[in-house]
């Protein structure tokens, strides 16, 4: 009974246990609750790291919840897997690692950030429930269980976005997100029902092995792609995202960035591993590419004219998700023909996934820096900010690193993943690369505006009393800065160990199916 076998279940059990124990720990006082929050998110990060290492070492790990032993996917005499199976391949472990890092940084940050507010036992339990829901979405192999974890993370994020319920904007943002997210989840449930009705199987690998494109599968695919793209923030359906990210407490926004990555993972898993080559017509890949292009350009066009700091960064997350959708769409487009796949398809997927990891890191850092500025000065509007660099040097430096990374300035990690996406989308059609480049220029323009107006410029007398933020918040930001700098300085290691195995796992549908169905593919 070595612990490596139970890692997938432990990855979910830990944050869930933390969420259950939060009210009990808050009986023991503020420090015990804070210690529990940080300890649980740190151990979840450790478990995610060991899980990633185990998956890299010996292939796909799957865990049968409630089975005689945790590896028995097909009990004797059964043709299809019946229990809920957590299937962790290189892509799930890669996304779980990046989600766990964002959750740990957010927990560290919200120790001091939330100390002035009441009801923090509810905050800690909702925060860990959101982490458990996000990690569940990333490692589950069962399509109905994926719906349940989407609901767990959505309901936790409704509560957390409206946490400051005396701010009208937060309540409005949470209601709009709740409305569109509930209708989207109902459509995901209809899609799961369609697939179950046709194949009587709920396991993604089992459905993937038996799937032949028909009317029911097309409806299920459209509902899944539509609602998962909505939860990522693709263009026409993105309007809840800047409101939700701007109004939530900053520690929560840092985690919400990773939660939208979990639905991007869900989109990739459904398109590549469940449908794969059976996707038939090139309509869905081109639809994802169009989502990507529209999100990129219109997201950053809206961001340039914003003057509220967190809303501006929220619109940038809409445009950055566009890059990943473009990368995955190009990969899906040429999944069928091996020559184009070898030439640029695989680079596109690696670029898209590496961009997902980079994006979560520097976007979370940007939000934490914006939250630190809000904590220190109490202002969010860029018009009445100025000359904060002298008073808050660490936050200014970290914000500079993060904005250089997001706008893709050469030595930073944002540039590496954008380079992959430029080159591979150029091979499909030059227009795609042109839109990507113009978006990157506009991103740089808007972050020059933010950095100049907020941090540079002459000293303002109204900010005389501003001091640097307390150490726990700096520690939260430092964790993310270290990861961003690590990815910047060692791109070849991180691509070879992080992005490439994930891309290979995503493309290798037969491996994903074979692990569960006993190599019967």
């Amino acid at each position, binding site marked *: 009974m070595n612990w490596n076998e139970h890692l997938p279940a432990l990855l979910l059990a830990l944050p869930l246990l933390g969420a259950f124990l939060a009210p009990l720990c808050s009986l023991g006082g503020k420090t015990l609750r804070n210690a529990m929050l940080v300890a649980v998110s740190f151990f979840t990060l450790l478990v995610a790291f060991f899980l990633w290492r185990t998956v890299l070492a010996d292939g796909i790990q799957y865990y049968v919840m409630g089975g005689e032993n945790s590896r028995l996917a097909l009990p004797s005499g059964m043709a299809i897997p019946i229990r809920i199976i957590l299937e962790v391949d290189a892509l799930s472990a890669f996304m779980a690692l990046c989600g766990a890092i964002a959750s740990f940084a957010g927990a560290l940050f919200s120790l001091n950030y939330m100390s002035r507010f009441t009801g923090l036992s509810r905050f800690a339990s909702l925060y860990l429930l959101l982490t458990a829901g996000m990690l569940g979405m990333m490692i589950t192999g069962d399509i109905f269980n994926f719906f349940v974890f989407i609901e767990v993370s959505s*309901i936790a994020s409704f509560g957390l976005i409206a946490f400051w319920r005396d701010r009208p904007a937060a309540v409005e943002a949470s209601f709009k997100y709740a*409305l569109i997210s509930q209708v989207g989840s109902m459509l995901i449930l209809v899609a799961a029902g369609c697939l179950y009705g046709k194949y009587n199987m709920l396991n993604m690998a089992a459905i993937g092995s038996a799937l032949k494109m028909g009317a029911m599968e097309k409806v299920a695919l459209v509902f899944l792609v539509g609602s998962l793209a909505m939860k990522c923030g693709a263009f026409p359906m993105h309007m809840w995202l800047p409101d939700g990210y701007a109004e939530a407490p900053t520690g929560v926004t840092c985690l919400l960035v990773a939660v939208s990555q979990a639905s991007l993972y869900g989109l990739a898993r459904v398109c590549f591993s469940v449908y794969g080559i059976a996707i038939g017509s090139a309509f869905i890949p081109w639809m994802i590419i169009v989502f990507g292009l529209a999100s990129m350009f219109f997201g950053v066009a809206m961001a340039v004219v914003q003057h509220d700091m967190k809303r501006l960064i929220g619109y940038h997350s809409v445009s950055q998700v566009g890059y990943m959708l473009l990368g995955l769409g190009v990969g899906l487009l040429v999944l069928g023909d091996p020559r184009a796949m070898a030439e640029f398809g695989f680079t596109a997927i690696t670029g898209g996934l590496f961009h997902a990891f980079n994006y979560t890191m520097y976007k979370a850092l940007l939000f934490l820096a914006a939250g630190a500025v809000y904590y220190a000065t109490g202002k969010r509007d860029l018009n009445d900010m100025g000359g904060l660099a002298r008073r808050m040097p660490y936050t200014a430096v970290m914000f500079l690193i993060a904005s250089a990374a997001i706008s893709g300035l050469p030595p930073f990690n944002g540039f590496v993943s954008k380079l992959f996406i430029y080159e591979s989308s150029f091979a499909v059609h030059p227009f795609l690369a042109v839109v990507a480049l113009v978006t990157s220029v506009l991103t740089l323009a808007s972050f020059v505006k933010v950095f100049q107006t907020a941090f540079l410029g002459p000293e303002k007398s109204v900010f005389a009393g501003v001091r640097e933020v307390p150490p726990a918040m700096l520690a939260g930001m430092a964790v993310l800065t270290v990861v961003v700098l690590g990815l910047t300085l060692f791109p070849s290691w991180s691509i070879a160990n992080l992005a490439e195995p994930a891309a290979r796992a995503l493309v290798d549908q037969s491996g994903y199916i074979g692990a569960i169905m006993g190599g019967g593919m």
Partner: protein
Amino acid sequence: MIGNAPFFTVGILFMMGLVGIFMTRNLIKIAIAVSILGSSVNLFLVSLGYREGGSVPIHFLAGDGEIMVLPTPQAMTLTAIVIALAVTALLLSLIMLVWRHYGTIDVDEVRRLRG
């Protein structure tokens, strides 16, 4: 053809819920329309598991009948009902807070966050 009767009801209920959301300006009616949508999806899930002449899928209650109705959709519907309750309770509490802050629950007036 009669076998598909539940699926027609699901279609009609789904359309009613969807159109209901857009037809009204009152937030509480929108929350009601969303729960109609949820119940139509639950009906869809339950009617998936129906088998001709099947009996209760519990072994010693099923008697000697060989065919059993599929139990998985019933478990799925149960979870969907639990989730629909939680979301409806949250939506209604948020509408209460919107009423307290904005003094109106008209969907066209609750729009401070725009642009």
